[in-house]
Structures are given as C-alpha cells and as structure tokens.
C-alpha cells in the first residue's frame, strides 16, 4: 500500500518536473522578449516567428549532419546564430529607422515582420511536419524516484538555470550588458554621455532574437516542427513577461514557472481544460498585481 503511494507521488512529482522543463523553454523565449521590451519598449510580435525559424534551422542543421550526434549540438549553437543574423538584417535595414516613430507603428512593424517571416518559412521549408531527433545520450528515460522521466526533459531542466545565470552575469557584469540596462532606464542620459543608442538597441534586439532562436532549437526535439508554432508561443511569452514584470529577467523565470506548473496541474485534474489553467493564473496575477510580480523597468 505504502509502496503504491510512493510510486503515485513520484509519478506526480515527475509530471510536474516535465511541466517545469517545458517552462524552461518558455523562459528562454520570454527572457528574449522581455529583454527587447525592456530596452526598446517594443512588444516584438515577430518573436514567435523567430522561435519557429530557430526550430526549422535546427532541423536543417541536424539533417545536414545525418545521424551524427554532433549535429544536434551544433544546431543548438548555429540555429540561434542564424536567427540572430536574420534579425540583425531586419533591424539594420528597416527597424532602426523607426525608433523615433509612434509606438503603435513599431508594434505594427513587428507584426508585418511576423507575416513576412511566416511566409518565408513556408517558402523555404514548406508546410510539412518535420522532426528533430535528440542525440543518443538524451533519448529514452531515466528512473527518478521510482518512476520514469524523459532524459531530454532533465536536460532542459539543467539548461534553463544555466541560461538564466548566464543572462544575469551578462547584464550585470559586462560593460555592454550594463549599457543595455542603463538604456532601458533612461535612454536620453545614455546618449548624452556619448553612447550610440541606436547600436545598443540593435544589440538588444539581436540578443533577444538569439534567445528566441535558442528556444526554438531547444523545443525542436520535443514537438513536431511546423508552421503555426509561432502563434501559440508568442501569446504565452507575452503573458509570461507581463506577469513577471516587463523587462525583468527573473520575472520571466517566475512567469514561466507559473505557466508550466499551472498547466501540469490542469492536466492532472481537468485534462480537457488544461490550457485554460495558465490563462486563469495570469488573469488572477494581473488582477492582483497589474504591473507584474517583480519590479518592471518601465
């Protein structure tokens, strides 16, 4: 009897661990969104498309390498870099001329970018479902507290905090990170002391998009890579950033965890309405704390 209970508890525990590991992907994507929101003050609607492109690039890179396990690790590195390159082109060619314009126009621009990128993905990769296989080490599952958990989810659980710490160190300990944070708080002052704000914005945008691409590459082995994966992630990332506090990286982490945990909880008690639970949690948080849980930079 007691043994049954232990198995049940560990199964529930692992169920939540899987939920939290998904939240790590949400964290990577929404941290990028949050960074762009904090520095540029633009809700980047194209963020989801860049995430999708990251997943497709990851697919292409792994396909080029065939079954070689190296392919996946290279994809994790190359896919975000390619996404960053795409965003750098879009930013320098078009976006950077709009910074002085009305806010809604910037939002509109990112929406136009989303439309264009979505169709470009269709042009390049087509509308088929694609899959990315994780390397051998991360396939299969481990037994944790007497019930199984997929290895890949454990990998995600490890990757999330590493990225969080890296981002923290980057924005607090490096010169460029400090400049970006300063630009988020007071961009006039930053330009007054002789820093080219336009390049700071460009850098922040590209870094944010890099994270979107990384999220896409990380999620690729767990889902079927296809058109339309941009639409779902972007709204979730926006809500996560809002409940966490705009521009606050730890807030993105808190928001992602709330999202992941409430969804796992929903799957346990009311599977049909599981996707409703995170939205409900978001509404409750926003009704109580409309400006987010942690301090926002706005």
């Amino acid at each position, binding site marked *: 009897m007691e043994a049954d209970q232990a198995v049940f508890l560990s199964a529930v525990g692992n169920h939540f661990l899987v939920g939290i590991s998904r939240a790590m992907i949400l964290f990577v994507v929404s941290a990028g969104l949050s960074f762009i929101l904090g520095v540029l003050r633009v*809700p980047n*609607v194209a963020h989801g498309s860049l995430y999708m492109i990251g997943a497709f690039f990851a697919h292409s890179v792994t396909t080029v390498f065939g079954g070689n396990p190296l392919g996946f690790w290279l994809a994790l590195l190359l896919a975000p870099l390619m996404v960053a390159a795409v965003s750098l082109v879009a930013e320098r060619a*078009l976006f950077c*001329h*709009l910074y002085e*314009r*009305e806010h*809604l*126009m910037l939002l*509109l*621009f990112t*929406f*136009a*970018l*989303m*439309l*264009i990128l*979505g*169709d*470009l993905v*269709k*042009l390049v990769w087509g509308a088929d479902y694609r899959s990315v296989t994780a390397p051998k080490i991360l396939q299969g599952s481990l037994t944790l507290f007497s019930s199984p958990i997929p290895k890949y989810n454990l990998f995600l659980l490890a990757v999330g905090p590493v990225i969080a710490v890296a981002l923290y160190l980057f924005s607090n300990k490096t010169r460029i990170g400090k400049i970006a944070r300063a630009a988020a708080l007071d961009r006039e002052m930053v330009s007054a002391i002789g820093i080219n704000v336009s390049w700071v914005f460009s850098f922040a945008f590209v870094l944010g998009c890099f994270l979107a691409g990384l999220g896409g590459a990380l999620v690729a082995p767990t889902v079927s890579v296809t058109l339309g994966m941009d*639409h779902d992630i972007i*709204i979730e990332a*926006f*809500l996560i950033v*809002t409940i966490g506090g*705009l521009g606050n990286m730890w807030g993105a982490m808190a928001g992602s965890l709330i999202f992941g945990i409430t969804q796992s909880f929903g799957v346990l008690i009311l599977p*049909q*309405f599981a*996707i*409703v639970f995170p*939205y*409900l949690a*978001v*509404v409750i948080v*926003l*009704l109580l704390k*409309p*400006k987010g849980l942690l301090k926002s930079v*706005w």
Partner: protein
Amino acid sequence: MPVASRKRILPVFNVLLLGLLTVIPSILPLFYIYIFSVIFVTAILAMSLNMVVGHGGLYQFHHGVFYGIGAYTLALMLTKTELPIWAGFLAGPFCAAFAGLIIGLFCIRLNRLYFAMLQISLGSLVWAVTFRWYKFTGGDDGIHGISLPDALLGIHRAYYVILAVMAVCLILMYRIYKSPFGITLRAIRDNPERCAAIGINVRMHQLFAIVLATFFAGVAGVLFVVVERSVFPDLMFWVLSLEIMIMCLLGGWFTFAGPILGAAIMVSLRTFAGVYTEYWTLILGVLLILLIFFLPEGVMGYLMKKIQPRKADS
C-alpha cells in the same frame, strides 16, 4: 476645396454610393456579392474598434473576442435553444457589450500597455475556454451549418440585410462621433490630464466607449454568422484582433471612415492575392512596411490631407 462645398458633396456622395451598392447584386456574379458582404461585416468590426483605438486612444488589443462572443451567442441560441430567432440577433450584440463592460471594468484602471496586456490575458482566457469546451461551443471545430430563417437564406437576401444593418450602424457611429460624447472622447485621447482637470470623468467616458464599441463588434459577429453560417474559435484568436487593428491603421485611424477602406483593402487583398498565390500574407507584410514608411496616417488620412484646405491659410 472649400469646406462648405465639401459639406454639400458628402451626403450626395454617400447616397450615390448606397445606390450603387443596392444595384450591385443584380450586376455582379455571386462570388462578388459574397465578397462585398464580407467586406461590410469586416468594415463594421474595424469601425467599432476604431471607436476605442482611434478616437479613444485606448490599447484595445483583443477586440476579436467581442466579435466572437457576438457570433457564438447567436450560433448557440440558434442551435441549442428554441427561442425566437430575433432574440438571438439581439442577444449577440448585448452579450458582447456585457462582456465589454466586464472586461472593460477590469482593464480601465490601467494605462496603455498594461491595459492591453490585461485585456489580452482576459481575452485569451475566453478563447481558451471556447477552444476546449467541446460539449458547449464545439471546441476547436466550432459550429457549422447553422440553419437561418428564410428571410436570410441565399446570399442575395443576406447581402441586403447586411447592407441595411451596416448603413444603420454607420449612421449611429457617425452620430456618436459628432456628439458631445465623441468630442470629449477625442479630447481625452489627446490630453487626459487636462480633461480630468476640468472635471471630465475620464475613466467613465472610456468605459462607455468600450461598451459601445463592443456592442458594434457584437453586431458584426452576428452578421458574420449570417454570411458564413458557422463559427469557430479563430474569431477570438489574437491574430484576428491584430488584423482588425491593422485595418484601422491601414485606412487611417484618425479619420472617421478610414477603417472601412482598411477593411476593404484587407479583404480584397486576402481574396484576390489568395487566388494567385498562397503567399498573400507576405504581400500584406510588405505592403504594411511600405505603409509604415510612406503613409503613416493611413490611406484615408493621406487622401484627407490632400483634399483638405490647409488650416494655416484660412
């Protein structure tokens, strides 16, 4: 062109346009009548959003939800209840307005982006429930093949009903636009602090604008059911909400009739570019970027500027 003569020309122009639209069904093939009906429905929707976004200056980012609520209310009443049909047609807009009141009450305390985000989260909640509640709303399949009364069967009859409803809606919206309320609303958009200082209840005006706008969105939703005879959760998805906003910006959101033009451009583009290529959103995206760079006040805003006498001269 002097203002006085423009004032005389405008009603003549409107009557001519209405006359033209009434004879269209007897000239054009069936497909075009359908397209025109879709444009009318979309135009009401875009105009309703512009009441809050363009004239009210509020970040109403999830307007599609109210459109969907209007459509779903009618669809559910027609398929699940025995109530008379006109009750459904009334209930749609009123339910949408009620939802607008509730969501508005929560959002109105906040400003700009926070307003937008709370509305998106509340709207997404409504969407998620609709998307999943298979027993009641049909879930992600929606409801199809809704039976309508004879008076609305056939695209010809539907066309005239929709045209009439649109005309009434536009007249009402114009009245609201020109009323003291409408003028106050635009004043609040331009300078809320000063309006509050002279004793205008800013929040009350904004809330009332939201309720009015969501009512008209409900009207558009009901008409959507008349045209398509089906409902699906995509009506409440955020992509549609952003599309409506683009129609407003495309047409010119500081003008009264701009959104109609925006809706017409969007629907035609989707239909006719969609015939030739499956990449019509690419075309739309490029068009939008051109618009942002070259016509920031929208097509109508640009035209108005061209024909309007310069204020500084008079």
